[in-house]
């Protein structure tokens, strides 16, 4: 017996086939498929018509159905209202959130994170895209904003925003992730919340120009090895980018999900360095400078560096590594409403700044054993990827849900033990070990970690305590 879902899938495949084969005489097999499908849907239709006898109860039923609602009987708004549309008022709890822990006093050097427990698909709406600034959100007049390109180029350049947008445009869908996503939990779980545990990231369709398309007419000098990107906001946020990335897929973007960037995202323009630390995607961009030596900006020395147990810190740690999380269930939206035997979809996100997701495994015992989950929807480079696994829920069961993603660069998410043995627990940034939700007996979901106690050898090396 096929599920309705499968039937629909077959139907979609079938329609595609019939379009492709329109000019072909050999349409026999697809016609057979279609007849098969029509026969099955017809059977369902008959059941539905005859099924009135299956209606269950003599009770009156729900008011939601029985009572006419005002929105069903009275005029709605004229189209002249809300010319820029907003979400339903009933969705007001789907919003960015902040915590004082992640703020420098006045919330100008701070972050508000994305409610990924409520996200669907792979696109974050612009109003929910996580917001991070170092001197507050600047509100720039695009007419008074310029992009200046200087340094080791034969021809320095100033562009107005209108001129910049005249370049041939490129549209790409990429996530942006703060490398401190999950960074408060190196020493143990802290947030009983998906939004705060993994919401320092969002994903959007960006439109802009390849920087290489601008540079090709400026004559970049051979000794140029680094680019400084600097913002025009009050923090003058700057970062150093190696030429290889500049000449590969780095972009200056003005469009986000079909409209202009929001001020929180750097309106009118920001840098987009696909897959790399969100901090490198400098907002309110106003200057690109080229040099033979790197710059040592504040946010690539004092912060955004990964201190290891050796006392050495990793600098220029560009890419956000392969990562994943279960998004449904979550601590916010749990399984307390499920009945015994309910079939439920476990859903999640996987992403890698180093390439394209190739697979996701799911564990029900905290990462001891894994089963393969299914990817679904579009699978794009350096982009959120949805994955799914169907589960039959047993009332009272305890589960440790852990997901683990792989990418086409060959990486797989490490266990917590594997990661902390190498980089310790003081790294702050770039934590991509597997994450675990515990489903309690009552269906509540809590954030846990599955990990060993560490010890230290006299030479400083980290080891697992009690391991033979």
């Amino acid at each position, binding site marked *: 017996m096929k599920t309705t879902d499968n039937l629909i899938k077959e139907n979609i495949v079938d329609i595609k086939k019939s379009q492709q084969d329109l000019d072909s005489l050999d349409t026999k097999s697809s016609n057979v498929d279609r007849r098969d499908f029509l026969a099955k849907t017809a059977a369902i239709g008959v059941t539905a018509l005859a099924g009135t006898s299956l209606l269950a109860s003599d009770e009156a039923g729900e008011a939601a159905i029985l009572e006419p609602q005002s929105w069903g009987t009275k005029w709605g708004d004229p189209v002249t209202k809300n010319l820029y549309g907003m979400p339903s008022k009933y969705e007001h709890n789907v919003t960015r959130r902040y*915590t004082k822990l992640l703020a420098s006093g*006045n919330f100008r050097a701070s972050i508000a994170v994305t409610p990924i427990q409520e996200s669907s698909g792979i696109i974050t709406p612009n109003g929910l895209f996580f917001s991070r600034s170092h001197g507050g959100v600047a509100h720039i007049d695009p007419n008074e904003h310029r992009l200046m390109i200087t340094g080791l180029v034969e021809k320095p350049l100033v562009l107005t925003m209108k001129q910049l947008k005249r370049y041939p445009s490129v549209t790409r869908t990429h996530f942006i992730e703060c490398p401190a996503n999950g960074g408060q939990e190196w020493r143990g779980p802290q947030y009983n919340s998906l939004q705060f545990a993994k919401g320092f990231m969002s994903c959007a369709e960006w439109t802009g120009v390849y920087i290489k398309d601008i540079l090709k007419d400026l004559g970049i000098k051979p000794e140029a090895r*680094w680019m400084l990107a600097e913002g025009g906001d009050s923090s003058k946020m700057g970062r150093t980018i190696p030429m290889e990335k500049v000449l590969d897929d780095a972009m200056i973007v003005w469009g986000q999900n079909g409209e202009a960037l929001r001020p929180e995202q750097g309106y009118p323009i920001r840098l987009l360095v696909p897959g790399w630390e969100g901090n490198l995607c400098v907002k309110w961009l106003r200057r690109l400078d080229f040099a033979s030596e790197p710059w040592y900006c504040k946010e690539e020395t004092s912060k955004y560096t990964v201190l290891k147990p050796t006392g050495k810190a990793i600098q220029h740690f560009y890419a956000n590594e392969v990562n994943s999380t279960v998004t449904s269930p979550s601590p916010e939206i749990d399984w307390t409403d499920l009945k015994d035997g309910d079939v439920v979809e476990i859903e999640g996100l996987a992403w890698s700044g180093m390439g394209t997701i190739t697979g996701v495994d799911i564990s029900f015992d905290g990462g001891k054993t894994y089963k393969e989950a299914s990817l679904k929807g579009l699978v794009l480079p350096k982009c959120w990827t949805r994955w799914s696994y169907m589960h039959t829920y047993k009332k009272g069961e305890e589960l440790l849900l852990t997901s683990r993603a792989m990418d086409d660069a060959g990486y797989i998410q490490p266990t917590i033990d594997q990661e902390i043995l190498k980089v310790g627990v003081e790294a702050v940034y770039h934590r991509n070990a597997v994450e675990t939700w515990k489903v309690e007996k009552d269906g509540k979901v809590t954030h846990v970690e599955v990990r060993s106690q560490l010890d230290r050898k006299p030479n400083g090396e980290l080891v697992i305590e009690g*391991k033979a």
Partner: protein
Amino acid sequence: MFKLNKKQLISISAAAALSLGLTACMENAAPSSSSTAKKASIDGGVMYPVANGKTGPYYVNTNAHNQKIEYGRVPTEKEYEEWNSDVMADGTGLPEGEGSVEEGEEVYEAKCVMCHGDFGSGGGGYPSLSKGNAYELHETLTNQRIKPDMDGPVRVFGTYWPQASTLWWYIKDAMPHPMTDSLTDDEVYALVAYILNINEMEIDGQEVDDEYVLNREKFLKIKMPNKDGFEPNIAGPNGPENVRKYFSNPDNFGAVKVKPSERCMTNCQEPTAKVVYIQGAGISDFHPPLSEVRDLPKEENTGFDAPKAYEANCAMCHSADGMGAPVIGDKAAWAAVTAKGMDKVYSNGIHGINGMPPKGGADLSDANFKSIVDYIVSKSK
């Protein structure tokens, strides 16, 4: 950081230089074979060069990316100078100037202490600038809090930052936080001298004591205790290749590589691994509080008319200069006030500060008083 060379600008041999530059840089990006669109890149990941009109799954109008485009103009020398404020590790971009520890302390007390605390101790979410002797505390960088009650590494300017140029540049461009780019070069030298002083650092064998006067020449002799504390080495002509080499080894950065067919499917955790729970309530100070409920938002109108109450109770001092109170609409004055954090502003107002009596002498609930403060602040942005 590079001076514009006008002669160079006039004689742009753009095409030649362009092909030179791009060829040199693109060599690494070229696909090893045209069919596979993947190659190890500087970040340890893969690249998707354009092959057969596509990059990865995206179609490309290759004709759009090889046109000669000449939008824009060359910046003027003045424009360039105005924005070219970066300071590099070798001193490029660092202006002449001088400032003493003593002057630095004065500026610090006037413009920095409200956030960074006494002697740079930090607080209220603002970064510490010092925790004591930089050379001694540099030794803490190997600390790992693997068990409760262990001390962590001290990561402040003196103990952690590899270059002093970063501090000079950052203060000049981005401090004081509510009013950036407002300090003179000499004031920046003075503040840097003060910060070196509270980190108990020395320059060229000489302690930066209370009498010390810093200038450009001395600044360039600063050697940070953690100068060699970062990997890979990004300096010099081999910088980018050092980075590529570093990220080609997953062990260097805590990553794991495996063939998909050989990945672990059973017994993938250490036998010692246990379920670890959030301690206490964990971090749960979320704003707005977590909720998945679909309902109508609460009405925010409390019935209290803040503008009216402002006129009645506050305008006499806050609407005119010369009363000593920050004037409504004065962005700079209120930015300085709110830089202390709104909690502090409320508390100062409720309890009184300087010449202002508690709540300005008005008979108001705390909540209503705060909404007047919010009104004044909103009118002063």
